[in-house]
């Protein structure tokens, strides 16, 4: 494998570049899916909390955060369209 690779360096590098591009595309799709579905909401909250309250105020735990978020949705429904 290595011997043939050494003989055809151009092809190997293009294969490697292709794999890297595929990897990047995969990561981009995964990033988009997680962001779109809302998996990152807790992290967004933590970032916001750290930026505004600093370390003095303890942030909610992940479980608390999601409960709180669902309660708010209960109080404040959003419409879905036809």
């Amino acid at each position: 494998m290595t011997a043939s690779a050494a003989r055809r360096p151009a092809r190997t590098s293009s294969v490697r570049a292709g794999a890297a591009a595929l990897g990047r595309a995969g990561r981009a799709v995964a990033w988009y899916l997680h962001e779109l579905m809302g998996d990152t909401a807790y992290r967004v909250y933590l970032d916001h909390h750290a930026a505004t309250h600093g370390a003095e105020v303890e942030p909610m735990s992940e479980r608390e955060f999601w409960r709180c978020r669902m309660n708010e949705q209960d109080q404040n429904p959003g419409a879905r369209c036809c």
Partner: protein
Amino acid sequence: MTSQPPGSTVEARPDGPEPDPALPPTELPAAERERESRWTLPKIVIWAAIALLGGVSWTMIAIVRGETVNALWFVFAAVCTYLIGYRFYSKVIERYIARPDDRRATPAEVRADGKDYVPTDRRVLYGHHFAAIAGAGPLVGPVLAAQMGYLPGTIWIIVGVVLAGAVQDYLVLFFSMRRGGRTIGQMARDELGRIGGTAAIIASLLIMLIIIAILALVVVNALGESPWGVFSVAMTIPIALFMGVYLRYLRPGKISEVSIIGFVLLLAAIIAGGWVAGTPWGVELFTLDRTTIAWGIIIYGFIAAVLPVWLLLAPRDYLSTFMKIGVIVMLAGAVMLVRPEISVPAFSEFAGGELGPVVSGTLFPFLFVTIACGALSGFHALIASGTTPKLIEKERQTRFIGYGGMLMESFVAIMALVAAISLDRGIYFAMNSSAAATGGTVEGAVAFVNSLGLMGVNLTPEMLTSTAQAVGEESIVSRTGGAPTLALGIANIMQQLFGGAALAGFWYHFAIMFEALFILTAVDAGTRVARFMLQDSIGNVIPRFKDTGWRPGVWITTALMVAGWGWILILGVTDPLGGINTFFPLFGIANQLLAVIALAVVLAIVAKRGPSYVRWLWIIGLPLTFAAIVTITASAFKIFSPVPQVGYWSNHFAFRGALEAGETSFGTAQTVEAMEAVVRNTMVQGILSIVFVTLAITVVITSLIATVRAIRAGGGDTHEDAPVDSRRFAPSGFFATRAERELERTWDALRADARPASARH
């Protein structure tokens, strides 16, 4: 406007606070923007190629009259027109109407709270916004409008979205963002005063009820007498409950994970449905008539609207979002790969008359209300004012999200149209003619469709029975409402890619399932929103009702709202004249009237911005005038037309006269009870038409008064939030330009320096 040099689209803000000199620029400098918008040879070549391809595609669809036309031309015509509309027309709107200013902070930045107001990545927000606006609407309307041939619907969907639908979505989103995310109802009250505002709020509440009722009617018609469909759609409830419990107690926050699990369970439910429908007990248990299913949805709607969201609504919403994006990508890919040949004529025999069996009425105005979602949908004004504007990171992104999001919905509508017209016309009319016409039997359907005198159509009983058998249904006759037709079209296309005839039943029920999923999500989300609106209104008289935690108040208002749409649903299901063909126009009219209201509010807002906006008001005036003419004419037809198939009241009096004359059957109503039902239904439909059109005309008049007053005074009060300086930057469109990327990097470096490495994730 002419006094301003080209490129300077932002107004000077001498009164605003000075930008922080320590920060990099918060907008792309005007010189940089101008340099990037300069025409270069490669750009000219690309846009000329897009224009050429679009022109050729339109020629193939509209002018070349061969035996068939390939579906690929529809895709190219749509995409090229969208690209040109987005690149040129939406920029005109941005430059002369919206005039965004990226130096201003958006509500997401000013009020950032980590929850409701969060500056969100533009590409992610595009997905969010699209998932919120798109549902079953763009899938159903184009299917029904296909009775007039493919061309009228195609032109309206593509041209309508560029000049009307996307304009409305973009501007409502932009002006709501400038007002901290105020809803269209609140904006109407601010801009048009109390009368216009109240009319707008009542109209949106009523319209919401009608839309829920008619969407539910579509589901009922898709599931009636279909044990496979009933089983698999019913299974979505336990699946959603499981997902809710999983997210609450097992793995909070793992939404993608649970959505994938839910999706796999959903597929299992569809496969299991085929097996259950093949057993005697399955047929016995899950073959339900339409009235029973309607009551099931009514009871379900009530329970779902009072249960906590985490248990049912939120998980089903995740599933629905997941399916929406997945299915649309899948369908677009399949149409490109399969490239079905379309043999439907450009204009059918029904394009000229008003007695088409699917929906009655002349092409103008009824085509434009039958296809609402996908071309122009007033309901979007409720979405574009509310959640999305609170998440926008930079003002300039509203064009991509508002205008671009609606273009995507239009593309979905084109896909639905392609799927529907790829079917045999005989089968199409057998499925979409009401049971009142076909008698609900294969023989009746064959006789009826062949009596329509359609060119090239020779329907045989074998075609209907073998098609029904292929998709695992008892019968496909009079499966009105659009959903089954679309499902058959999708099954037809998908089976050519995967699985062949063996999987046709799976794909059919897969399509039924996702349409039902969208609709049920819209039903309980809509019931909830309507309930809150009602609680708020009653709360003005009895303050206790404003307390959303007070359970009796929640139950009473929910029950009232469910009773409202449930009543219309039952009327539709039991309608002796067919249901969909008589009620669907109300849905379209209601939706377009909401668009008229939204555009009227935008018109007043823009007129109040100042004299330099007046010569660009036509951009809003054009869709507003068209939608107002369409809906008012359609309402007038429905109220005054002497043709019983078209006019609600003429039908009402015809049946009433027959009853008074002592007749025991009249038209398609065979009994006295059926005749009484027609008298009652036509009265409800007639009254609703009158109420809608009166409310819309009230709003339009108040808007015109406010607009003329503002033009005379050279402007008016602004209800925009005071400008606050932005302290962040993000690119405007889907792809960042080179200059935007450079500026973004400067900001990223600044953030990296400002924050210790440990705090970064």
